[in-house]
């Protein structure tokens, strides 16, 4: 049985390690975790030059006069498995 100071140190270290693991595994918005990136590698999203967002496509259409084509899918166009 751990004495109280040892128990507090153990709990603090465990909590810190867990928080660091979570933060270390955290990713910037929109990017895949490292292990997921390895399992579902990035690929070129076809030959179409896609705008970064629907809003960007609409703005471009305002300049070019072209209508917008929005493609909805499950998964990501720039990943192998989609």
């Amino acid at each position: 049985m751990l004495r109280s100071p040892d128990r507090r140190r153990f709990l603090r270290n465990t909590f810190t390690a867990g928080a660091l693991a979570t933060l270390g595994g955290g990713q910037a918005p929109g990017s895949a975790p490292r292990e997921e990136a390895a399992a579902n590698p990035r690929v070129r999203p076809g030959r179409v030059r896609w705008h970064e967002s629907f809003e960007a496509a609409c703005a471009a259409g305002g300049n070019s006069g072209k209508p917008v084509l929005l493609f909805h899918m499950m998964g990501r166009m720039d990943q192998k498995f989609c």
Partner: protein
Amino acid sequence: MFSREDVASFIQRSFEPAWEMVRPVPIVRIDFGNGHVATRTLHGNIASYVCGTDGNVVDILPGIYTPAAYQAALEPLRQLALEMGPFSQSDRQAQLQAYHRTRQTALNSAAQPAQANPNDLGKRRMELRVEQLVSQPVNPVNATAPPARPRPGTNLADWEPLAVDTRQNEQERRLQIHTRLATSNLLRPDQIKTWLYREVLHADLEDPYLGLGNPLFGDDVFREVEG
């Protein structure tokens, strides 16, 4: 399809294109424990929205098309979107509702299709084997034999089940869309995608298991443990 030069060129010169993920695609990964891993996707489905530059939907192509049919279906929608451009928002709404009513009437008047298949024939042939692996049939003795899949190297543009999917998309699914849009105010894609995926593409985005929850966990003694 977007790797094809003809499709990519057509899209590039005709539209300002963008793509969005509606939800992560379910992936089945089987680790055989000897270094071999098989990875497949489940339940992917797609929708193509033609929109004005104001972001409002003009029309929608549901599901998978052959490359030629995709371009042929997009071209009149491109022209329609261009014609809508000069109108005010209220006039545009009225014009689009009239367009969708006309298309609805035309499809209703067309020859009745064969019994509706809620699942894409081509897509199902690609995915059914994986679903059968994931969810054991209740009675394995009577389990449906997995349908034939295209041979490696098959040009999918010429694959007959894909052509069947295309016809179903153009007849049954577009009728559902025209019926909905004939009475709708102007909509943005994110305002209609949940309905579209649930009612037309039969993939409920709000179901975390996309309809596979019961086959997977319905009789699973460990369901409570896994949560």
